[in-house]
């Protein structure tokens, strides 16, 4: 009995099918509790007013957006090293979720930034690196879509994911440097984790748990869809042969 057993598609389907209802229910509960608590039962910030409440969507989606790429990197490595198809399919299934989360983080950030900073968008390193991350997601998904042979596509996207990870980290630090070169130090720090007050802390944690749960649920659904699509392809190929 080891973790690698679930690399077998049949085992994976059985386990994920059993886990899925619980994951979905847990996600729903955490999201409802976290967001409702955050939106309706926390005080307004004395300087930001009610706009502070966007933190319950912005921070969790941003965290998921970054960690989704990390998960894709691990899945790509597993595929390249151990050749488990489920792993490659999971990486493929994760990319659109991560891209969507990146867009949500950017959009909520812009909505928050308009009244607070007086601008929808500033070329702050954090904002810019998220935009670059979004471009990486786009390139990754486009490569998946463009290659016909699924195994070749899995290999190529894995290589791209690994090289892309290095360049994404490089870009992140290059952007910090670039911004300091252009402006004075970042006065628009988004680092709310450090100074978020206790009243906001627990609903934020629950909202983060809800978003992570949402990611896991969507990932399981999408991976199961990919596995089924692959089976369907195999069946159709067999049909044509016979």
């Amino acid at each position: 009995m080891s973790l690698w057993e679930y690399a077998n598609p049949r085992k994976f389907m059985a386990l994920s099918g059993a886990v899925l209802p619980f994951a979905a229910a847990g996600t729903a509960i955490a999201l409802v509790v976290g967001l409702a608590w955050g939106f309706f039962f926390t005080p307004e910030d004395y300087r930001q007013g009610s706009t502070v409440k966007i933190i319950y969507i912005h921070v969790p989606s941003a965290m998921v957006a970054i960690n989704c790429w990390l998960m894709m990197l691990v899945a790509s490595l597993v595929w390249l090293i151990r050749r488990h198809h489920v792993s490659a399919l999971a990486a493929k299934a994760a990319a659109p979720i991560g891209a969507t989360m990146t867009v949500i983080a950017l959009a909520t950030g812009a909505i928050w930034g308009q009244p607070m900073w007086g601008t929808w968008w500033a070329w702050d390193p954090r904002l810019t690196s998220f935009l670059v991350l979004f471009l990486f997601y786009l390139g990754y998904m486009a490569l998946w879509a463009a290659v016909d042979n699924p195994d070749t596509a899995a290999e190529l996207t894995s290589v791209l994911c690994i090289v892309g990870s290095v360049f994404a980290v490089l870009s992140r630090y290059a952007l910090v440097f670039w911004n300091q070169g252009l402006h004075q130090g970042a006065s628009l720090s988004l680092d709310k984790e450090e100074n978020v007050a206790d009243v906001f802390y627990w609903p934020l944690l629950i909202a983060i748990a809800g978003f992570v749960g949402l990611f896991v649920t969507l990932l399981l659904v999408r991976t199961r869809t990919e596995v089924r699509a692959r089976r369907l392809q195999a069946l159709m190929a067999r049909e044509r042969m016979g």
Partner: protein
Amino acid sequence: MMALIARDLALSVRAGGGFGLALAFFLIVVTLTPFAVGPESATLSTIAAGILWLGALLACLLSLDRILALDYEDGALELLATAPIPLEGVAAAKALAHWITTGLPLTLAAPAFGVLLNLPAPGYVWLTLSLAIGTPALSVIGTFGAALTVGLKRGGLLLSLIVLPLYVPTLIFGAEVARRGAEGQGLAGLSTPFALLGGITLATIALLPFASAAAIRINLR
């Protein structure tokens, strides 16, 4: 490897006219810029360094799909894969040939185009140096992108989508060197981005041919 480089150079000069294409594209970008932002020389001189870097980058991008696609179509790439030199060496040689045919001419042409955009006088040295140091990285990264998309029918647009995010760090440091140089900061002011630009180039030359070779192997299988 020398033979491979010589062959690629000869092909790019003789067949298809790929050689001058990037240079002409660079000139067009530089020509169109004043039409877009207006002819005031003060405006132009502040953006000249950035526009020249961006133009060089786009011109480099334009010729990337020629690095491997033609060899893939006529089967030469498969012969190279079975040749006694390692595929990593082939990838590196291809990148070098691409740099000699695009990066180097772009670097040499950039000061002349800088005159068109009213680049401030101290900027010329640093623009040329930063392009000379930075364009090899563009060629190596581009070869990796070309290797990923070589098996595709119409990989051109996809290639741009994949390669452009990878160009971000190189562009940031390269343009930073040129811009600080144009502002009149000497070596003391721009040594940090200059060193980082050199670091990126050396690291990509050392590591990316392995990734390119892996991608070529996958595509040939």
